[in-house]
């Protein structure tokens, strides 16, 4: 199974385009899921503790971080990852060969439940108890209670939902650039002691007018991108997932996350969170 399509070559093919996008990442790297440089081979790679530029391409579209590997997509080939780093589990490989459509949209929860996109005629996504059941010949989707977006706020249109893999913390972004967060108080108590158990708007820093552009939730950390290009975060940093260095293990307040990407006033396209790592894509 080959995910790696050698897209680096096409980058070389367009020498007159100087404009490139950069992927910055930090956090867990146990399976080299942050090493896009395939010439590097380390039997026990260390984690990355500050946001580091790991990849440049003329056009990075979006990131899909899995627990043990990372996929990077470009607009050139929208449904096929251009870069892969880390260790791809066999079941994921099987899914990508047997059901490529499912593979490019599926989500896997901590309790194995898999959600895949629905058929156009079916308004609800399909859910399976696990990837193994999905891949078995006699697979049957099952249904689980679903969240009704109207519960978040009756007046706001939700444009993005992000949840920790365990589902113990959920973030919703509205069309009006407001951010709602809620979760399971005792399960989040170490890193988000005051987490509300129903959707409540949150504010970054002192400026209550700050609009939110993007949000991403990891196992126990949250990343927030404001419309004025600042990145904020809170939670566990023991693997470096907030890019706050080796010494800081945890932040329980919203903290401005800084990195090289701040310096040259570049535009931040979006943020993504793996279980224990974070990704930022910067465009010129």
């Amino acid at each position: 199974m080959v995910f790696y399509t050698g897209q680096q070559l096409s980058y070389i093919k367009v020498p007159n385009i100087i404009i490139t996008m950069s992927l910055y990442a930090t956090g867990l790297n146990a399976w080299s899921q942050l090493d896009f440089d395939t010439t590097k081979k380390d039997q026990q790679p260390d984690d990355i503790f500050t946001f580091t530029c790991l990849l440049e391409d003329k056009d990075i579209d979006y990131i899909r971080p899995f627990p043990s590997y990372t996929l990077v997509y470009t607009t050139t080939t929208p449904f096929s990852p251009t870069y892969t780093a880390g260790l791809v589990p066999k079941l994921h490989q099987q899914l990508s060969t047997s059901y490529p459509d499912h593979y490019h949209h599926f989500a896997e929860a901590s309790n194995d439940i898999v959600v895949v996109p629905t058929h156009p005629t079916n308004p609800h996504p399909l859910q399976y108890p696990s990837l193994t059941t999905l891949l078995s010949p006699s697979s049957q989707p099952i249904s689980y209670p679903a969240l009704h977006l109207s519960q978040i706020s009756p007046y706001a249109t939700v444009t993005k939902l992000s949840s920790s893999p365990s589902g113990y913390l959920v973030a919703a972004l509205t069309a009006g650039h407001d951010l709602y967060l809620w979760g399971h108080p005792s399960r989040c108590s170490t890193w988000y002691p005051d987490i509300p158990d129903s959707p409540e708007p949150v504010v970054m820093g002192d400026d209550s007018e700050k609009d939110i552009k993007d949000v991403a939730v990891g196992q126990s950390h949250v990343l927030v991108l404001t419309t004025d290009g600042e990145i904020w975060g809170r939670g566990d940093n023991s693997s470096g997932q907030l890019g706050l260095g080796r010494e800081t293990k945890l932040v329980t307040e919203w903290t401005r996350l800084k990195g090289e990407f701040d310096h040259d006033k570049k535009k931040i396209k979006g943020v993504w969170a793996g279980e224990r790592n974070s990704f930022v894509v910067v465009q010129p």
Partner: protein
Amino acid sequence: MEKEETDDPLRKLIDHGNSFISRYYSHYEESAPILEGCGEPLVELLVRQARLMSMATPDHDLIKRRLDDILSASYNKFYAYLYKDLPPCWRLLYTEAAILKFWVLVFEWARSRQPELIRKRVWDKMEWEDFELNTPARREEVHEIKARFEKQPKGTPSRNLGSAVWHQLMQLSMRTEVGGVHVRRSREVSSRVRERLQEWQRRNEQEDGQQGPEQQQQKREREEELLNDMVKTLDLALILAGGGGKHDEIHGYVALLEKAASLPSNDNSPDKISSKPSESETPRQDPSLGRTRTTSLTQPPTKRARLSLPPPTNPSSTIDGWLPLNASGELVGPVAISDEPPVNTQQQTPIITQKPPNWSSHPSFSPYEPFTPPVTSPIPRLPSPSLTTFQSHLSSPTPQPLILTSLVPSWPALAAHPWSKPSYLLSRTFSGRRLIPVEIGRSYVDEGWSQKILPFSEFLSTYITSPSESKGYLAQHQLFAQLPQLRSDITIPDLCYTSPANRPDGTPELEEPMLNAWFGPPGTITPLHTDPYHNLLVQVVGRKYVRLYPPGADVKRRGEEAGVDMGNTAAFDVGVLEGWDEATGEGGDEEEKEFKRLEYVDCILEPGETLYIPVGWWHYVRGLSVSFSVSFWWN
């Protein structure tokens, strides 16, 4: 050479660790089919750590972090599923990672206690992999260099690896073999190898330099910290992951560790070592070991007692609640680690390595009872019924509660191994280092009730032997599966092997009676509730008040709370309605009237007495003094 090792517990521990690591693949094979469920990435990460640990100079810090990553990933799974749906692979993965982490900590600890032992290990294990050499053929080169060095008259390779041999080995690592030709290898690899070797060398020198009293003190503190970490790692595997089916293995490791920890630490001064006749060709005959062994046999008991039981300098790595435990305990959070000052319990700590002491001279828990409720409808007492009598009592359509006054007279826990003595309990819990889960709060239905895992010594000093505002109750814990050394102080009453007629629907038959420990200060309360089992509640230490309402009583039940069905617990608080406790919530007069109409039986259970609670009976249990009970459930 080998036979010498058997009587030095530390060496025995290290040998065990070495063979565990080198045999890890065969060990792992038993677990492999189950672990498959965790997916290859995590399994690969686990096996990778074992492989790296088998190298001479592994990066212990990174290995520990990776093992913590595995612990954290599997711990998160414990909460991703309903308890009953958790696939067994996750408990096993947690346990496997915990055992590997235990060995990393053992090597670090042993390195501080007896550096020679670990340096020897490094030297012996040093192989081509440590230099990241790419062909086994070059293994011979490493062997040659080592052999050449060992032949030198003054060569004590374990002592000083920084000399010529080090240099030669490093040279080796700078070349690699491509198509049979040696070429200079990438700067990155060779500098990585060099760095690792130099780091070890630095540590060797640092250890040799540590001789001032302050450094010795630091060294001892570090050792104590490591010891607590080792115990914590294994205990969390037992408590959180249920031991992953590896109880016996883990108990064996704790026993080995406890023996090794009871010896005084090597003070590690080079002059003492070099003054011994050294026959360096046989590296096993490590002078420092001989010295330690002799010392340990000849030291006067007083000194030994002091050295063998260093005070738990900081055993208070308390972990609050179930959530913040975060798998390895040392991960995140101000909440996760309590800042309580270290508790000094060593005055009570007995000598554990010597003959069983006479415990009768040691102080007992205080019998003080702040409040004693009246007994108004006493449960009948009889000495000890025969099996047949008891069986026919059970078989009656409505078996009644009974107190059996002499069912357990022969329990060591009541006599030769007195659970009433804090010092005895500490001696059975690795000087109080073993962790136990404790419920914090007066009763599990109260606001602010939580669970903590903390060292036994801290539990004793914080909640039992000194007055504390919050109540800490070791309740409904299968303590004896975790601490087999306490299990042998009690026996399962034969009465638990009777077969009661009425098993509630849907409750599976227990193959063995289920044992739970209940240990707490005065005033702990188990609110009125029912269990789906027959119960023999044996009072070992102190007194408890118990009130029972028959199964048919019109007791108002609680509903579902925070997703948990609380229907087996009554909606009212006996203590509040009786006026013994202050009300915490609202309660109507109507409720009180209704409650007062209900008929009940009650008793104060004395040490050595056993209360039979028939299945389905509502029971309210209140600790009057410091109290330790054991319950046996069967059906």
